């Protein structure tokens, strides 16, 4: 069975004062190859922990991750990761950043350059390839991060709020780019976000998580990502189902937040 299976994942953090926090409890997700999953939830629901376990940066207390029928332990190049920001290497140029993965594999200069040039074209940064990354705007930096991840040909792309630090306009453009890349490359993508709208737009499947312990609260199958490919995202947002689903999820999350804060406020 190809794809990514997350099987009964639990994660408990033991705190220095002796208590412990159940960050995740029995989280199971079955992801087919090429699926785009967005994960949404109030802060503290274990979204990032989940992603870090899938990426291999954290070892779960129990449960297993299976990728293409092989259980995975620890980080690996077949699971690429795109971070919110600040994960680019500022001592390298844009070209060197994108070529980092191939270089680590020891790829020859010529095929590496072809890959880098192609990806910089895809993300629209061809003329910036010799620039230092800190000379680019936040949106451009995230394009570099996407290109760097794709250059390594991962099977799964894990995105940890990749657009969280961008301004609204840039964010919209980048959402379009993510959809385009997903459709063109056919990669399996898990995207974590704070934004309900983003989760709806970019999630073929959407999981809403609940906190304490972190668990899956509700799962949706959504048509909007498919609609958004090749269409203006603002048109998608006008769809009546979009508004109703958004309201439904928002009130769900509000209820969770209020539960955390200890009862409804007046």
């Amino acid at each position, binding site marked *: 069975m190809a794809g990514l299976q997350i099987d009964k994942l639990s994660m408990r953090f033991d705190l220095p004062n002796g208590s412990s926090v159940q960050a995740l409890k029995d989280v199971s997700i079955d992801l087919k190859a090429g699926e785009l999953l967005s994960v949404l939830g109030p802060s503290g629901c274990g979204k990032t922990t989940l992603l*870090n376990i899938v990426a291999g940066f954290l070892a779960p207390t129990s449960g297993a991750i299976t990728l293409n029928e092989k259980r995975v332990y620890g*980080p*690996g190049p077949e699971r*690429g990761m795109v*971070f919110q920001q*600040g994960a*680019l*290497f500022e001592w390298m140029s844009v070209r060197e950043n994108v070529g980092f993965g191939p270089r680590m594999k020891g790829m020859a200069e010529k095929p590496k350059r072809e890959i880098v040039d192609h990806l910089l074209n895809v993300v629209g940064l061809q003329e910036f390839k010799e620039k230092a990354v*800190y000379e680019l705007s936040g949106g451009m930096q995230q394009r570099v991060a996407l290109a760097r991840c794709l250059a*390594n040909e991962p099977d799964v792309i894990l995105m940890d709020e990749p657009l969280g630090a961008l301004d609204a306009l840039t964010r919209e453009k980048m959402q379009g780019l993510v959809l385009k890349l997903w459709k063109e490359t056919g990669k399996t993508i898990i995207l974590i976000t704070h934004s309900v709208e983003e989760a709806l737009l970019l999630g073929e499947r959407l999981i809403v998580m609940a906190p304490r312990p972190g668990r899956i609260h509700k799962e949706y199958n959504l048509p909007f990502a498919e609609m958004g490919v090749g269409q203006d995202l603002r048109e998608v947002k006008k769809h009546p189902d979009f508004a109703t689903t958004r309201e439904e999820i928002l009130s769900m999350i509000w209820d969770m937040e209020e539960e955390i804060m200890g009862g409804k406020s007046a």
Partner: protein
Amino acid sequence: MNVIFELWGELKAVLLTIVGAIPYIAGYILLILATMFVWSFIKRMLTPKHDYSSLKTVTFGDESSVVSNTAASIISIVLIFVLWGAFTGSKLLPGFMHVPGPFEGEGTFTYTSTLPDGTTDDAQVTVLVHPVGEDVADPVVEAGDGFAKNDSMTIGSYRSALIRVADNDDTTRGDGAVITAIDGKPIVPSENVKIDFGQVSMTPKGTLNVQPSTGWQMEPIWLPSPEAVWKRLGEIATDGYRNSTLAEHLGFSLFRVIVGFILGSIVGIPLGYAMGLSSWFRGWFDPIVEFMRPVPPLALIPLVIIWAGIGEVGKIILLFLAALWIMAIAARSGVSGVRISKVHAAYSLGASKWQIMRYVIIPNSLPEIFTGARVAMGVCWGTVVAAELVAAEKGAGMMIMVASKFQSTDIVLMGIILIGIIGFSIDMLMRWVERIMVPWKGKG
């Protein structure tokens, strides 16, 4: 309890010194403000138009709009030299800019001798004040009439001298003759009287002490004039000092700093990396580093001299120790400062541990290491001068220490200026290297 009184006494002395310096400090501040107003006035005059757009609406308190004013810097430096010249009677300044100098030349005052029976007689004392080091003879004077005879004496400028004016008089101590007035103004033992060119005081035993006025200028032994320092620089640069040329003195100091710093970095940087990457190494070296870091390298000088002597080895060990802890701590914080997302990103791009070290951790720590290197070079330069002050055969510090023992203040000043220039140049050089090597500093 005694200690507290003692400390209180010291504190009082310090406070009194500060209070005494207030007029000078106030004068200097007034000078700064005056030049500031003059400068802004001139600048306004030179600005062609005075409409709305010529006004700069910069908010007071906006730190980013404060930049070092080049004109102020230039005036500040020039003023230091002008003040220096004015207070040393420098030939580089026109005479009217000098502050009053010491009295030089011939002056006279009269003294009145009184016998127990009330008879008095006046006599004149001729004083020749000459620059120190010049050989002059006592001025020739007539004896004059009366029982008190005229006297003459010579005094080097800035000095004072005792004169027993009664020695050549027709009276002796046994006669009970006492001096009762100077220039007609009454005087008693332990008091003083102003005269035209200074003051005369009387010792408790009745001898006169002549102090020609010293003016406001500094004696060369306290503060030599700029040209004297410059001349001495030329002499030492060509003839050397204490069997070594100036270049040798400075070269030896620099050599020690560079070798000590390089050795300290070679050991300190890997040590810092080990401490940043391994709990065992951090646990092992944390107590040592944290203890050694606050120990000033200067405090190690005695031990290093005992163990390694005063030769090059001892100095380099000292500078090695001075640089070692700074570089180790800089490398450690450089490693600790790496954003975990960068390491994670490298892992998920397939990098091995070694590749993460080579392509992520080391480049990421370079800015910190360069900052540490700048600090270490500064500390090493300070330490080497101090170590040479204690004991050395060659070196900038040794040069000024020996010179101070012979009161060659010009060499001391020259040495201090050269030490300052070299220290400043080292810092500039390090900043330049930093800009070239780690252009991404602070941009992450």
